[in-house]
């Protein structure tokens, strides 16, 4: 554990303490417009600073969401400047994950012929921290362009065969690109855990990582089942690490008719889940399971990498909740209905 471990724990808990509360979300859900929601978020200690310069009356939804994302990114960046160990390598992985999303977005844009919108959507906060020139990447008009721009990077190495194949065939297997990129990302994360931690710290952090991967795999399996794929196809598509989600569990999962049954099965294999609760989406179920574990671990763990990892995950869930509320407000849904969609 580094010298700054205790301060990372204290700082993580302090940042977590500023999270929006259920009461804040209830108030946010009652807002009637994006402007009102922005004005409310501006008054919170969590997002107040990030929104200080904006005029809530004129802010666009996309801009608001971009600023909230930037706020999270800046917190992680601040941690990486403050602590030179775990926060530093975690930050590198956060950047990698965001880069992966951008690359997939560009590939999708080229595949759809909608390359114009990419540059406008690229998060500006990522541009200066990314090892890839994201704005240049946005100029890509073909798979060859992407392949050329990514050459010399790890992503280029992973995607090269698929991009070459796509250049010849004129179409690309996006699902496979996604699988390769995220597999690379998680392998790199697990290597980092192996290299950066020892003993009990490593065991605890690995458990947290693997649980998080399990939940992502549950979502992938459920979605693939909805598109008619079988357990074999799902097993090939999921991230190749597991905590409790064995091959047998995946097969069983693919047979469940609804989210309620999935919840019951997850409870059977040892995940702590309230089976009497109603879940509207599979993400709501998996995030509910994750959030309970993350919050508990964040409060009781004595290991700074685990605490920091839990903070990152909690903040991302919180951000997704805020985006859900903004989306709900835009569609004019009643506050109570939006509240039901959140993971609190």
């Amino acid at each position, binding site marked *: 554990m580094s010298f700054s471990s205790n301060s990372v724990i204290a700082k993580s808990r302090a940042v977590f303490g500023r999270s929006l509360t259920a009461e804040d979300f209830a108030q946010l859900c009652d807002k009637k417009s994006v402007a009102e929601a922005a004005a409310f978020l501006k008054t919170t200690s969590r997002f107040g600073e990030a929104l200080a*310069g*904006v*005029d809530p009356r*004129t802010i*666009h939804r*996309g*801009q608001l969401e*971009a600023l909230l994302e930037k706020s999270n990114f800046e917190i992680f960046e601040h941690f990486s400047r403050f602590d030179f160990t775990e926060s530093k390598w975690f930050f590198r992985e956060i950047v990698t994950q965001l880069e992966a999303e951008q690359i997939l977005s560009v590939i999708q844009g080229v595949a759809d012929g909608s390359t*114009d*919108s990419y*540059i*406008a*959507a*690229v998060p*500006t*906060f990522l*541009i200066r921290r990314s090892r890839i020139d994201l*704005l240049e990447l*946005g*100029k890509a008009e073909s798979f060859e362009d992407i392949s050329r721009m990514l050459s010399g990077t790890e992503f280029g190495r992973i995607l090269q065969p698929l991009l070459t194949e796509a250049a010849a065939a004129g179409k690309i297997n996006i699902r496979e690109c996604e699988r390769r990129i995220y597999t690379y990302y998680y392998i790199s994360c697990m290597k980092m855990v192996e290299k950066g931690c020892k003993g009990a710290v490593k065991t605890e952090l690995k458990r947290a990582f693997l649980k998080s991967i399990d939940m992502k795999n549950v979502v992938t399996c459920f979605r693939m089942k909805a598109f008619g794929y079988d357990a074999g196809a799902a097993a090939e598509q999921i991230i190749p690490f597991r905590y409790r989600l064995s091959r047998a569990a995946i097969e069983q999962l693919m047979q469940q008719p609804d989210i309620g049954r999935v919840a019951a099965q997850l409870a059977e294999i040892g995940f702590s889940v309230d089976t009497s609760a109603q879940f509207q989406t599979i993400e709501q179920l998996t995030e509910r399971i994750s959030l309970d574990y993350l919050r508990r671990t964040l409060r009781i763990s004595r290991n700074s990498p685990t605490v920091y990892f839990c903070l990152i995950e909690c903040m991302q869930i919180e951000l997704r909740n805020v985006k859900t509320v903004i989306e709900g407000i835009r569609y004019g849904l009643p506050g109570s209905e939006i509240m039901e969609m959140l993971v609190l």
Partner: protein
Amino acid sequence: MGIEKMSLISVEGRAEQLDKSLMLCCESRNFQMNDISEKNGSAAGGAAQNPYSGAYEKLRGTAAALGITLEFRNYDSVKQETPDEFERWAEEVSSGVDKIRAEHEEMLKSIDELRSTDACVKHLLGLNVSFRDLFSMKYVKLRIGRLPADNLQKLDYYTNRCIHFIPFEKNPDYVWGIYLTPADTCEFADSLMKSLYFERTRLPDYLDEDAKTTDQMLENIIDDEERLDRQLEQQMSEYRDKYKDELLAVMSKLKFLTDCFELRSMALISAGRFSFSGYCPTRLAGKLSAELEKLDSVQTVEVPIKPKNAPADVPVRLHNNVIFRPFEMFVKMYGLPAYNGFDPTPYVAVTYCLMFGIMFGDVGQGLLVSLLGLLLSKFTRNGLAPIMTRIGLFSAAFGVLYGSVFGIETIITPFFHRENIWRLLGYTKQPENIFQVATTLLIAALGIGIVLIMLSMLFNTILKFRKRDFGEALFSVNGVSGLVFYISLVVAAAGMFMFGTNLFTPAYIICLIVLPLVLIFFKHPLSNLVMGVNSTEKVSVGNFIIENFIELFEAALSFLSNTMSYLRIGGFVLSHAGMMLVVAQLAGTNTPGAEITVSTVIVYVIGNLIVMGIEGLLVGIQVLRLEFYEIFNRFYDGSGQSFRPIEINFGADN
């Protein structure tokens, strides 16, 4: 003096007399209504819609718009009686206010928009071409506004899309500027710039000059609109002056009628008759019953509540004389006593004043605290003010004893300078200052503590006997056994250390120290025996010994720690003297014959104020701590429910 005796009043009559009965109860301000509907599971009285609430809410909104703080006014002159009459009046007053308010809000919105436009124009002051010329271009379209600063770099990647952005001014969040685009690609450019979150500012048609002139014009328009807005505010103010008194009187009456109607939900109405009940102080119950019975068909039954057999929900109101009354605040802070309990207010008042006086003894400072308390009582409703008046006097009295006037000890002779006293205290020569009698002071502080602990245990014993809880009275730590143990230990210790007499004989130890401890140890079985209770709880011998041993050990330790806790009384006497010594040193008056100058006086004044502020507060808190922790803990159980008479006030409506 103590806990006010309560009576239960049941009121019954014809249903049409319900409102009048409730009004009388409200007006008495001494009637706490019981919710009959809760007990009977029906709320017949509250089923109807409140006919006054509409008019009240409308007027409340009007009062808020006019900036009137709601307060109760005499409403004898208010002519309106029926809900319709109130509605009409509310409509008449509100419509005028609503019209002005709507215009005011419209004006504010317009000013806000103009300011926002002007803010943008101000960022374009370098633009010396008229907007008319720019906006009237046929082949090139122009937009003005601001772009998030982060997105500026992205524009470089759209150079082939015929968008030319000219930045004017920049802050960390935004860049203000204009963009030009060919008319035929305008739609695409607008869409692209929108996706980059460009916030377009639309200038009104009449603003067609260059940026500088436009800015000037906008400022003039804003000034004009602000002037108009001030006129509207003036109109609002005139409206407020015209209607304020009448509005408050009508609202007072409406509030009264509204709340009385709401109280119907707590009454029972059946077969054309109503009934409700509630508690009223016994000394006022007769008067209230007589008033109620003056109403046609209304009958009352008054039942005085005896503390011995009081139901659990009887509310408690403390009733003390004017000297002790301010100290009720401390008792309420801890929790009111049970109806069949004991009001410790007089005890708290005396002990608080005494301990504060001892710890903060200074004639000048005490009288100043008292005077400050008097002034605060006159001009504020602060509950601490009357307490300050009283404790200040005790502080002054002890100041006389210590011979301290604003820390100067040469004006009054201190008690320890009197020969008969210092000889009585065992000193062979006159102590020069209070620090030389520190030991005596600390022993005296312990003595005070011992007396207060004994008194508290005695109170507890008496109270338990009164409640016929003989087990607790005889065998508890704060009962007879604890009292005997504590007194015996104190007497023997005092005999040994002060008079050289060893009382610790085997008989003394066994009878007065060991036996009470044994009784405390076996409190539960002995209590059951005395009270004739068959305990069904099965406890193993091991558990019994461990639990009771720990309890006994903790009790014995608490006797010691509680007694030592009172040392702070002596400690603060010394601390006060020490702080004043520092002030004297800073002022340079600690040596005989020191010259008194203006700076000496200033240092003395500031020093005294600081000592009063810091030490006064500290002593106040420490004494309260002693009261709550060392005294109340031994006998007091703040389990009473506060008496909450029904009354009409604007409370949360403001």
